[in-house]
C-alpha cells in the first residue's frame, strides 16, 4: 500500500510530475545521443585508421623505425607474410617497402612516404582500392603507375596521368629518382593517406633500388573484434627478433583519443546529472512542503520515519522509472535512425576532415551504455530525493499540524 500511496502521490500534481519526468526523459535522451555521436566519431575514425592504414599488427626490423634506414628489412618478410596469412583469426597480410623521400611535379614538391606495395594483398588488408575517387587500382598503365592522396594531388597541381618524380636515397646512400605516372587518386579520413603516402608497385620500387625481394613492413589484419595479443604472442614465438606492434602502439594518439572521449562523456554525464539532481531536489522539496500538514498528521498518528522516508524516495523512483524508459526509447529511436542514414556533415567537413574525420557520421552505442545510463539516472533521482526525504522526516508533527 505504501507503493500504491506513493504512486498516487506522484500524480497529485500532474504538471509538476510531468516536468520532472520530462526532464528525466530529456536527460536520458541527451546522454544517449551525446554518447552515441561521440562514439560514432571515435569508433568510425578508429575503424578507418585500422582498416585503411595501420592494420591490427605491424612487423618491422628492430632498427627500422629509428630513422627509416632503407637497409633494415624484415628478414624473409614475404615468406612470413604468406605463413601468417594461414593462422587462425588472421584475415589478410601484406608486405611493403617503405622509403621516405620527395615527390615532385613540374610545379611543386613535397615530402612523401613511398610505399612499395604488393597490390593484390594490399587490397585485402587496407582496401586501398575502395578509397579511389579517380582513376583505377593500378590498371591501364603499364609503366610505373602511382597512386596518391587527393590532398597531395592538389598540392602538386597534378591530375590523373600526370607525371611525377620520386626522389630518395637508395640502399647505397645515393640519391635516386624515378618517374611515375598517376593512375589513381585516393581520399580517406586519414591525413596520412590524403597527404603523405605515395603507393607504387613493390616490384617497380625494388627495381629502382635494387633491394630485390626484401621488405620493410609486414601488416596483419585480423578478423573483426579479435584481440591482437594472441597473434602477437604467436608471432614472437614463431619468429624471433622482429619488432611486433599493435595499432595501439603504432598510433598511440588513437588510444589517447579514446581516453579523451571518455573524459568528455563523463563531463557531459556530470552536467546532465547535476541538472537533474537540482531539478529533482527542487520538485520533491516542493512536494514535501506542500504536504507538510499531511505528513505531520501521518507522523502524529504513528507512521514511522522509515516509512515516511521510503515514501518520498519511492515517489522519486517512480518518476525516474516512468521517465527513464521513455528517454531510453526516444534515444534508441533517434540513434537507430541516424545509425542507418548517418548524419551528413559535409557542410562542415572541411574542418572535420582536416582533423581526420569522415564527413558522414554514424552514431554508435554499445548495449551496455543503455543500462549504465538508466541505472545512473535512477541513482541520480534517488540522490536528488535524499534531502527532501530527510526534510520530511525531520518535521515536527505538532508544528506541522499547527501551520495554517
Amino acid at each position, binding site marked *: *500500500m*505504501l507503493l500504491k*500511496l506513493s504512486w*498516487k*502521490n506522484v*500524480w*497529485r500534481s500532474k504538471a509538476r510530475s510531468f516536468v520532472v519526468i520530462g526532464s528525466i526523459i530529456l536527460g536520458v535522451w541527451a546522454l544517449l545521443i551525446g554518447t552515441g555521436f561521440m562514439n560514432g566519431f571515435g569508433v568510425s575514425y578508429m575503424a578507418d585508421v585500422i582498416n585503411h592504414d595501420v592494420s591490427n599488427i605491424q612487423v618491422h626490423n628492430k632498427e627500422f623505425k629509428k630513422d627509416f634506414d632503407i637497409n633494415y628489412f624484415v628478414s624473409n618478410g614475404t615468406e612470413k607474410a604468406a605463413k601468417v596469412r594461414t593462422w587462425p583469426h588472421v584475415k589478410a597480410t601484406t608486405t611493403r617497402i617503405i622509403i621516405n623521400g620527395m615527390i615532385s611535379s613540374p610545379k611543386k614538391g613535397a615530402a612523401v612516404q613511398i610505399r612499395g606495395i604488393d597490390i593484390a594483398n594490399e587490397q585485402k588488408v587496407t582496401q586501398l582500392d575502395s578509397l579511389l575517387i579517380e582513376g583505377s587500382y593500378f590498371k591501364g598503365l603499364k609503366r610505373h603507375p602511382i597512386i596518391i592522396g587527393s590532398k597531395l594531388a592538389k598540392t602538386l597541381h597534378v591530375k590523373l596521368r600526370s607525371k611525377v618524380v620520386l626522389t630518395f636515397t637508395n640502399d647505397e646512400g645515393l640519391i635516386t629518382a624515378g618517374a611515375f605516372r598517376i593512375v589513381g587518386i585516393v581520399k580517406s579520413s586519414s591525413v596520412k593517406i590524403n597527404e603523405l603516402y605515395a603507393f607504387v608497385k613493390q616490384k617497380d620500387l625494388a627495381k629502382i633500388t635494387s633491394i630485390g625481394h626484401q621488405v620493410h613492413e609486414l601488416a596483419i589484419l585480423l578478423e573483426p573484434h579479435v584481440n591482437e595479443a594472441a597473434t602477437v604472442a604467436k608471432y614472437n614465438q614463431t619468429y624471433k627478433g622482429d619488432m611486433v606492434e599493435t595499432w595501439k602502439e603504432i598510433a598511440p594518439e588513437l588510444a589517447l583519443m579514446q581516453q579523451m572521449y571518455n573524459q568528455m562523456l563523463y563531463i557531459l554525464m556530470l552536467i546532465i546529472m547535476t541538472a537533474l539532481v537540482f531539478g529533482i531536489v527542487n520538485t520533491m522539496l516542493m512536494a514535501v512542503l506542500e504536504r507538510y*500538514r*499531511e505528513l*505531520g*498528521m*501521518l*507522523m*502524529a*498518528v*504513528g*507512521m*514511522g*520515519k522509515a*516509512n515516511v522516508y521510503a515514501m518520498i524516495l519511492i515517489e522519486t523512483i517512480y518518476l525516474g522509472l516512468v521517465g527513464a524508459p521513455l528517454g531510453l526509447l526516444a534515444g534508441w529511436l533517434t540513434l537507430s535512425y541516424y545509425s542507418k542514414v548517418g548524419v551528413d556533415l559535409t557542410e562542415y567537413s572541411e574542418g572535420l576532415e582536416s582533423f581526420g574525420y569522415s564527413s558522414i557520421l554514424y552514431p554508435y552505442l554499445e548495449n551496455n551504455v543503455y543500462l549504465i545510463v538508466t541505472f545512473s539516472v535512477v541513482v541520480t533521482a534517488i540522490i536528488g530525493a535524499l534531502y527532501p526525504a530527510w526534510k520530511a522526516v525531520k518535521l515536527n*508533527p*505538532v508544528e506541522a*499540524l499547527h501551520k495554517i
Partner: protein
Amino acid sequence: MSIIKAENITKTYNESTIPVHAINGINLQIEEGEFTAIVGPSGCGKTTFLNILGGLDKATKGSVEVAGVNIGEMPDSKLIDFRLKNIGFVFQAYNLIPVLTNKENIEFIMLLQKKDKKERETRAMELLEQMGIADKANLRPSELSGGQQQRVAVARALASKPAFILADEPTANLDSKSTATLLDIMAKMNQEEKATFVFSTHDQRVIDKAKRVITLEDGVVISDVTR
C-alpha cells in the same frame, strides 16, 4: 487501572527567551471508558495538554503514564510506534490522506500496525458502517462533507482499538448538525466499543454531551465534574 495518569505536568514554551507558561501543574487520571471533554477559553492550554497526553509533545516537568508506560522518557522513534499502537488521534482538520479512498485511509493505519489484509478490510467496512458512511467507502475524502470526513477520522482512530482516542477540537470546523451527528457517533462508539475518548472543545453543545468535563484556565485545572 487508569489509562492515563498525568502527574504534576508543567509546560513552558521558549524557556530560553520569553517563557510562556502554558501548563502550570496538572494532576489528572483518566479511566477506561471515559467520555471526557477538556474545556476552557482560548489559550488556556488545551491543545498543549492533549499533545502531551498523546506523546506528541514533551512536558517540561512531570510525568505521563499511558497504559502503565511512562511516555515522557521514551525516545522519539519509540514514541511514534507507541502512538501507532495505543493512541487514536482526531485533529481539527487535515486528518486524511487525500489520494486514498476513505476505506483505504482506515486500512492504511492498520497496515502500519501490521494487521493482515482480511482483518483490515472487515474492520474498515465495519467501522464505516458504524459511522453511517459505508456507501462512501470508495470515495476520496474530498468527496465527503466536513462532518463525514471527521467520521472517517474517528473510524481511523478506532481502527486498532487503541487505549484511548484524543481529539483536539474535532468539531471546530463543523456546522451544528454535523457536530451533533459526530458527537452522537462518538458517544455510541464509547458505548459499543468501550472506547475511551478525551476531546477538547469550547462548544457548549459538545460540552453538554460529555460525561466528564475538565475545565482549564491559565494552564491549571479549575474544575473537574463527572455527570
